[in-house]
């Protein structure tokens, strides 16, 4: 279980997160939606301390971090319990697909190289890249790179995987393959928090949907309820703008 309490974050005078409370049960898939600038990516980055929250508390199972004064060890542990998939893939460019996945296993988890290799090959086969083990990121398409990124995150066996707009940088024709992989691992019961703009995907895969705006959680609930009968006015407006029927009617 992941529990965030009163997470606050400011960049200079600009308060981006204004006290976020969020609980994610084990095995849940949470989709975070909201207009750009609403703080959803910042919230995600706060969970593994790529962004340092000013205040609040992060609890993962029985491990907790007080954000105001964290020690280095706590941050390190927190990062080992989480994994992240980035919008820009952020693969290690000088390493092959296989080495990208292995890296965390034998550097951080101290697993022997042979064992790490076997596990990594398994994972790359799972994301459909069994034939690209020795390719460098520059030789892979965006969709393939992102699938390596997902395999790299899975390798660490984290409590939760954080997806930061995993399909936003992709060509439309490549979005499908990445979403299919995420869908597949969602079925295996891994806890996931996904920031996304793919409404259909969120409705389909998520077990819980959170709508954020201007640094606060406006509304949250089951995807069916939130998409069909939102309670808050801001949620209604957002969904109206983003659903295809409204977007294409002249």
């Amino acid at each position, binding site marked *: 279980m992941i529990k965030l309490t009163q997470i606050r974050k400011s960049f200079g005078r600009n308060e981006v997160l204004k006290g976020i409370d969020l609980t994610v049960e084990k095995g849940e898939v949470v989709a975070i939606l909201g207009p750009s600038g609403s703080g959803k990516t910042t919230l995600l980055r706060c969970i593994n301390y790529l962004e340092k929250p000013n205040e609040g508390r992060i609890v993962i199972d029985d491990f907790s971090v007080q954000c105001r004064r964290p020690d280095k060890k706590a941050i390190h542990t927190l990062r080992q319990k989480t994994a*992240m998939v980035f919008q820009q893939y*952020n693969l*290690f460019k000088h390493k092959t697909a296989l080495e990208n996945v292995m890296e965390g296993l034998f550097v951080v988890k101290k697993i022997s190289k042979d064992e790490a290799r076997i596990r990594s090959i398994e994972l790359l086969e799972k994301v459909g890249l069994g034939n690209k083990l020795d390719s460098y990121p520059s030789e892979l398409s965006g969709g393939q790179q992102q699938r390596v990124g997902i395999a790299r995150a899975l390798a660490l066996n984290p409590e939760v995987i954080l997806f930061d707009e995993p399909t936003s940088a992709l060509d439309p024709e490549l979005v499908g393959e990445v979403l299919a992989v995420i869908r597949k691992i969602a079925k295996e019961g891994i806890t996931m928090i996904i920031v996304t703009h793919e409404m259909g995907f969120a409705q389909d895969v998520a077990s819980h949907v959170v709508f954020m705006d201007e640094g606060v959680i406006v509304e949250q609930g089951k995807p069916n309820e939130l998409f069909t009968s939102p309670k808050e006015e801001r949620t209604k407006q957002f969904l109206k703008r983003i659903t295809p029927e409204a977007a294409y009617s002249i």
Partner: protein
Amino acid sequence: MGEPFDFHYLLDYLVKLVPTLQMTLLIVACSIVIGLGIGLVVALPQLYKIPVLRRLSQVYLSFFRGTPILIQLFLFYYGLPEILKLVYVDVSKVPALYFVILTYALHSGAYLSEMIRAAVGAVDRGQVEAAYAVGMTGFQAFTRIVLPQATAISLPVFSNLVIANLKDTSLAFSLGIMELTGKSQTLAVMSRHFVETYISLAIIYFVISYGLEKLFHLVERKLLRHERQIVSDEKPSRYRKWKQRRFALSPGFGRGGQENEA
């Protein structure tokens, strides 16, 4: 002026100069190795924006980049002993070579630190974040992710700096060091065959520089094998291109030739 040109002297001096190459290469190797250490130490405060040290490293940089190396050699050779005398350290017995290596190391260090700063900055920040997200410590992220890529990026600049350093060592003879240029001066004055001496001197410098350039290019290719578009694997050599063109033109070899015979 000197004696009339004699080709034999050229070969003779080439052979006589080669042993002093050892001294030149010693100065280059020592000053580059020490310079790399200095460069890293100077680059760090700039990369991590450490307040006071950053200013100091900037002063160091602008001094060594803003004054000629010849002046720096004189300043260190004549000035440093005077300063050390004030704290009762006697360095009058220390050979000039040490001063030369120190000066060249500090001089190269300035340029090398700029190289390091630029190269580290060129590795994109996202990969460092990914390394953190995987659970690496700052040190692991730097040595395993940033450093290998920064090394590859900096290699062309590094190659330039080493070659520049090699040629700069020709000034060391002004402090009486018997390296390539120093030796050639003596030879030239003794025999009065100036042109031959300097031609053989130029040949040696050129061969070494050219060799270094090729060597670095090879290493760069190896380090950048993940970037297919920058360093291509299959670049036909100039000789092969020339051969192809020749065969294509000459009758009897290419397809055209056979047609003629038929």
